[in-house]
């Protein structure tokens, strides 16, 4: 069976969702995984079906599996060269292991992928939701847009209609204006025509009335009266005409003359005022001048101006100067100049005043140094009494504080120090006490230990004496019966003695006891190397001796006694050992 065909066969078992996942995003991300998933999942199913291998097609199966395995890149399970029916179990197992590993991996990847798929599906869901939302938004905005467009269109239409209206109105206005103009011209024309007719009629009426004889206009005067001025009327001649003209011009001239005179008077008045102003200005400026010369305004034209002023003053004295053009010009010029100066002066004063005002409002940098210094001096002067005041206050305070509370405070202070010291001493005392207690206890311990030691020594001396006595007495075989009691008491003492110093001793004892039955060489390695030598040296003789005893006495009492001896020996050894360590210390 070829691989492709098997794949096709396998695909039959692939669930559609797996296929889906294969065909979807996972595929492009990790193609090797797909193969595993493809192969692993159906294999698993195949196993469940378990109709793959029968007794008859073992060979085929083998070859097939071999093929498959090789296709998976694993070492072959079975080689034909090695033997037809025999397959390498190790290889198969390895292969199986590999396969299982693969399968696990596949499962893991599957799981991962499932998780990923879940994630991605949720992601997709989320995206879909957002996309629907966005679509809705889009729809909404589209609707709004269309609404706006519609409104815009309507507005456009409105604007157009309004424009049309405006245009119409304008046209109407134009038309009406034209109508008015035409009507006005027509009216004027008609008026003129009528007027002409009217005048014609008037003419005609006049003519008719003049021609009419019956009721002529007439004057009926009793007698002529004289002219109001008493003169006789004159004939109308060229002369009279000229005279009238002359009179007319005379009246005009007289009018102009009077006007001129008035103006002259006014001018004179104004000039007088000007002169006065000038005089006052000059006086003001001259008062100011010496100050100003010190200032940074070195006017080049001052001298010339003063000359001018003098001249003008001279001319003002003579009224002729009023009417001469030069004098007038000079006057106006000087007035202008003076005015300018005055103005600048006033402006400066103004600015100074404003600065001063500003200074009053807030101490600015713009304040001149003088005022600054003045202010400083003033403030200093002010500060001095304040300082004095503060000092006196302090003094008073100190006096008040110091006079009644002197002794108390010192005592208080000393008390404070004493207390501290006392505390310190107490602490020290405590520690010292503690130490003393410790020392006391140690001493007691020491004395106790000394007493104990002396006791022990005494006991030891006694023991030795006893032992020596025993040794001495051992030569006689009848003294054996008394021994166990004594040894027993000794052993008891020994155990109690060794409890505090070495806890391992009872263990040893117990072991020794339990191993009494076991052969003797076992006992040796349990002891330390150094002591072992000593034991050997010490125990050599008695062992042999006991053995001797054992070997020689086969009766029960004899064996009992031997055992007792053994025990005692052991005890002795232990005792020695303990004593040795104690002394060493």
């Amino acid at each position, binding site marked *: 069976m070829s691989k492709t065909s098997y794949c096709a066969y396998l695909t039959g078992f692939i669930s559609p969702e797996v296929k889906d996942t294969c065909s979807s995003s996972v595929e492009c991300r990790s193609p090797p995984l797909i193969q595993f998933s493809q192969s692993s999942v159906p294999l698993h199913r195949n196993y469940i079906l378990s109709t793959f291998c029968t007794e008859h097609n073992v060979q085929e199966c083998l070859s097939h599996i071999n093929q498959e395995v090789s296709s998976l890149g694993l070492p072959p399970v079975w080689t034909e060269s090695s033997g037809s029916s025999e397959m390498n179990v190790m290889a198969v197992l390895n292969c199986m292991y590999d396969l299982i590993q693969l399968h696990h991996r596949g499962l893991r990847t599957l799981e991962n992928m499932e998780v990923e798929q879940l994630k991605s599906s949720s992601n997709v869901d989320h995206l879909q939701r957002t996309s629907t939302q966005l679509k809705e938004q889009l729809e909404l905005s589209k609707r709004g847009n269309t609404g706006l467009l519609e409104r815009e269109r309507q507005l456009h239409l409105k604007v157009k209609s309004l424009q049309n209206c405006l245009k119409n109105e304008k046209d109407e206005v134009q038309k009406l204006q034209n109508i008015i103009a035409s009507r006005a011209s027509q009216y004027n024309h008609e008026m003129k025509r009528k007027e002409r007719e009217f005048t014609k009629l*008037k003419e005609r009426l006049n003519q008719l009335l003049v021609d009419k004889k019956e009721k002529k206009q007439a*004057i009926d005067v*009793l007698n002529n009266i004289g002219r*109001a001025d008493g003169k006789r009327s004159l004939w109308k001649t060229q002369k*009279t005409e000229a005279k009238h003209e002359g*009179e007319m011009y005379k009246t005009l001239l007289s*009018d102009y003359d*009077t006007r001129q005179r008035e103006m002259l008077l006014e001018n004179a008045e104004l000039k007088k005022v000007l002169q006065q102003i000038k005089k006052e200005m000059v006086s003001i400026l001259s008062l100011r001048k010496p100050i100003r010369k010190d200032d940074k305004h070195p006017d080049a034209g001052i001298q010339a101006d003063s000359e001018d002023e003098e001249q003008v003053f001279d001319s003002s004295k003579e009224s002729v100067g009023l009417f001469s053009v030069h004098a007038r010009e000079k006057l106006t010029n000087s007035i202008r100049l003076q005015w300018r100066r005055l103005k600048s002066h006033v402006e400066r004063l103004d600015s100074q005043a404003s600065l001063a005002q500003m200074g009053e409002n807030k101490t600015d940098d713009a304040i001149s140094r003088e005022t600054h210094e003045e202010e400083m001096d003033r403030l200093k002067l002010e500060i001095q009494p304040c300082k004095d005041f503060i000092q006196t206050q302090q003094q008073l305070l100190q006096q008040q504080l110091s006079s009644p509370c002197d002794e108390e405070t010192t005592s208080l202070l000393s008390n404070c120090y004493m207390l501290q010291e006392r505390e310190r001493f107490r602490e020290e005392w405590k520690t010292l006490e503690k130490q003393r207690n410790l020392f006391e206890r140690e001493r007691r311990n020491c004395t106790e230990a000394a007493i104990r030691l002396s006791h022990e020594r005494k006991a030891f001396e006694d023991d030795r004496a006893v032992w020596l006595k025993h040794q001495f007495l051992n030569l006689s075989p009848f003294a054996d019966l008394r021994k166990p009691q004594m040894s027993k008491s000794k052993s008891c003492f020994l155990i109690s003695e060794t409890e505090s110093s070495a806890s391992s001793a009872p263990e040893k004892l117990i072991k020794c006891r339990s191993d009494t039955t076991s052969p003797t060489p076992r006992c040796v390695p349990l002891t330390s190397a150094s002591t072992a030598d000593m034991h050997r040296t010490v125990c050599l003789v008695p062992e042999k001796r006991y053995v001797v005893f054992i070997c020689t006495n086969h009766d029960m009492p004899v064996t009992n006694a031997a055992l007792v001896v053994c025990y005692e020996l052991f005890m002795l050894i232990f005792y020695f050992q303990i004593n040795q360590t104690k002394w060493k210390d």
Partner: protein
Amino acid sequence: MNFSEVFKQSNQLCKVSPDGKYLATCVQYRLVVRDVSTLQILQLYTCLDQISHMDWSSDSLFILCAMYKRGLVQVWSLEQPDWHCKIDEGSIGLVSSRWSPDGRHILNTTEFHLRVTVWSLCTKAVSYIKYPKACQKGIDFSRDGCYMALAERRDCKDYVSVFVCDDWHLLRHFETETQDLAGLEWSPNGCVLAVWDSCLEYKVLLYSLDGRLLSAYSAYEWSLGVKSVTWSPNSQFLAIGSYDEKVRILNHITWKKITQFEHPSSINNTKAVVYKEVEKRTAVGSDDLSLHITIGTALYNTRSKYEICPSPVQIPVVKPDPDRANPKIGVSSLAFSSDSRYLATKNDNMASVVWVWDMQKMSLVAVLEQTSAVRCFQWDPCRPRLALCTGNTTLYLWSPAGCVSVQVPTEGGFQVQSLNWHRSGDSLMLLGKEQLCLCYMDTDQEDK
């Protein structure tokens, strides 16, 4: 303040002679001349018909009585009572008659303004001036009596002719830049002639005596324009009242506007004093001497007095009918005081109010709010004192010192329709419908 007894008169034709000595009154077709001081009848003349116009000659020697219906003018001499003169205009008709300044010529304007006939009483000579224009004020004599300006209309154009009154010599004849000339007026010094256009166009032209155009002034276009024009007695100001309820003051040097006086309906000018007339129906015989002076028996139980109103004052305004011609709006009356210090004005849609302006401060001085429409106001020829009447029994006087209302203590309900100052300023002639009465100012009292 004293009042004379009441005399009869008709057509309100009562005039004091220019020299101030005589008082001429017309009663129907009779002319009565009295002595002003004694009120004794000096002469009594009988005319041919009911007199429609009466005028004194400048030398106070002759009186002209015109009977327009009959086209007749009769002239009487005060010195020679039996002297008589009768001018018959015949079938050509008569609409206006006036003395020439010299008092020896009579200028008659015929019907339809066909011509102006100039009759000489000295030589019986007659001369005609053709094409006079029928307008508001077509003829004006200069104050000194030398020149006469006449508005003419020829070939549908306006012209002004300046005549020498001495021999009616045509001195100047010039076309004016007006659409429809409405009036002309000499400046008091006789050197400048103000010419204004009809109300359809706001235009004021100023011509020199020799016919040169000095200046033209137009405040605005299109809406109704000039309604009244008055020179100040010192010829320095020309006041122009117009339909926009404003008075514009031109100066005599540049002929430019100096200022304009508005007539607002609510006054909140704190410097102006607003006098409001309050009528009280009081009990008979109360002696309320606070502001008005009552003399004689108080038969009329309506008393009026002035109250000073605090600053924001609302003035009654009558809205004019826009469909009617000659709407009752705008400044129709202007009068300078004799010293040119004050200007009194009246706005037609606030007919009950007279405004007094100070020409030195160029500001409003006083507002006199009457209970009824003001009929007439006139300045004292000698003092800054304004007399006004509203067609009731009270005479009102304003001076910078204050305001006074005076009940005319005559029987039978003398309603003052018009008034005229005597040239001395000592007395005032009050004209009722059919009566007249003289009011004498107490010289020592009025200076209070």
